[in-house]
């Protein structure tokens, strides 16, 4: 019985795997093809593996610059998120007061409200502060937008730390800052890992905030640069270059994810669900 259903079940699994993989394979092959090949044989392997499409995308279509900008925003945004979230999560988990409950609920409620609603005032606020077109400001905006989610995940992990450890340190005369940074933070390393991976992936992939808040082409991040490249590629029929650009945006995340997928799955099943 089980053996029979195993065979039947494999068919849809294989089919879906193909539906996921085929577009990606098509994209990778397209990145090595000439325009003529893309038109004449969309399903065939490229005749030769030359990297000229990648070179053109990287140098002539600004993808290189955008790649570095995205990298900067991703790293800075992820670090800022942690700096802002860890102390808050700790205080909210350990000090259960009416005020704390209200604060948790305010943070949680903000996750339900569409960010779109705030875009227009945010745009004019940054304009007034002279922070438009500024990668530092974009990183800060990203970080704050993910603070509620990060707190939500970290509170669960902090709740699992036995209080006795902190009490012992306190008796030894350690300051509350020391307890927070030297005892609590290292103990929630796996939570920090999971949440940072998820945050980093979404900062790397973010598109609309960057589209609105960045203006000069040299400052754009990958999403915006890809969208520009798409428009240019359609105009110049530079399809191979477009596919190469897509690969440049996707490959780092796929590698990153494949390395860290265990801790994502673990963090999601241990932290987020319960």
């Amino acid at each position, binding site marked *: 019985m089980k053996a029979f259903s195993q065979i039947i079940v494999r068919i849809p699994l294989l089919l879906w795997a193909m539906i996921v993989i085929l577009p990606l394979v098509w994209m990778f092959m397209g990145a090595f093809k000439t325009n003529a090949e893309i038109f004449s044989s969309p399903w065939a392997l490229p005749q030769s593996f030359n990297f000229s499409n990648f070179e053109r995308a990287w140098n002539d279509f600004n993808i290189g610059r955008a790649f570095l900008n995205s990298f900067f925003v991703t790293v800075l945004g992820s670090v800022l998120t942690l700096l802002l979230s860890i102390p808050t999560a700790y205080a909210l988990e350990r000090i259960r007061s009416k005020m704390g409950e209200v604060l948790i609920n305010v943070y949680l409620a903000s996750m339900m409200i569409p960010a779109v609603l705030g875009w227009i005032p945010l745009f004019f*606020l940054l304009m007034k502060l002279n922070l438009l077109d500024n990668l530092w400001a974009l990183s800060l905006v990203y970080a704050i937008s993910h603070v509620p989610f990060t707190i939500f995940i970290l509170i669960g992990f902090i709740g699992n730390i036995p209080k006795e450890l902190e009490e012992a340190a306190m008796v030894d005369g350690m300051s509350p800052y020391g307890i927070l940074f030297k005892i609590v933070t290292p103990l929630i390393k796996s939570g920090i890992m999971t949440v940072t991976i998820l945050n980093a992936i979404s900062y790397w*992939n973010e598109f609309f905030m960057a589209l609105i808040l960045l203006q000069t082409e040299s400052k754009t991040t990958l999403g915006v640069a890809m969208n520009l490249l798409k428009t240019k590629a359609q105009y110049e029929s530079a399809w191979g270059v477009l596919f190469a650009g897509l690969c440049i945006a996707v490959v780092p995340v796929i590698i990153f994810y494949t390395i860290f997928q265990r801790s994502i*799955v673990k963090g999601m*099943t241990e932290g987020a669900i319960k």
Partner: protein
Amino acid sequence: MAHTSKQRYLFLAFCLLPTFLLFLVFTVYPMLGGLYYSFFEWSGTSSVKTFIGLDNYVKLWNDSVIKKAIFNDFFFVFVKVIGIMTLSLFFAVALTQLRIKEAPFYRIVFFFPNIMSVVVIGILWQFIYDPSIGLVNSFLTKVGLTEWVRPWLGDMTWVLPSIAIPAIWAGIGLFMLLLMGGISNVPKSLYEAADIDGASEWQQFWRITVPLIWPQIKTSILYIIITSLNGSFVLVQVMTGGGPGSASEVMGSYLYQRAFEDFQFGYGAAIGVLILVVALVTVLISQFILKKEKVEY
């Protein structure tokens, strides 16, 4: 106690205040500001901001594009809830309960679209549908279904389902993982007892699995609704810009165009408020529909 209460308050302030102040400035203020701006007519560039009361909302009421956009938003919500939940529930059960050796492979592969940016997914699928270089039409030609060949994203009737497919494609992995987490917590003894009682796999699925992972199913459905209403416009904006005509317009893409392309910031803000209201009402209604007594085990 080793610490005085003054030290303690200082420490609490250190932990909570900086983050909360930044949150007020960059999250709360913009959201309240969105509501405030919706009562004005404002082109953004000039300093002239005219208070017009509820005029933007009256204009919205009479705007036929926004009606189409709301309809399309609900189309996406409906198709995504059905498509994502059916497939991810099926895959989650298959990968956890049927002891398939290559399960980890499928788990990793199915999650790939979830880590790709929506822009990249949008661009990729736009070219999968492309009339001249795309995979879909060349496949249809190959298998002899030439009468099906069409410019998918330029076709009034087919544009919506064509955008819904990559939306489902990109969603499966995450929800499959969430449901797998739920299923792995269901005690094995329940299935063993059911086996002894002679219950079929189908019965076990409906009588044991679904009721016991109902919290995860409910959370997933609500999450799909919220993210769809708040975020499906990215795919729309990248793939079609709302076209052809306004056939694939959703509320978010319409907001972006009105505000950041036509510089009607007051009207755009009113659309933002509308998105919030529609999302809240939809979530409340679905929460009511999905309510079901929790099963204990």
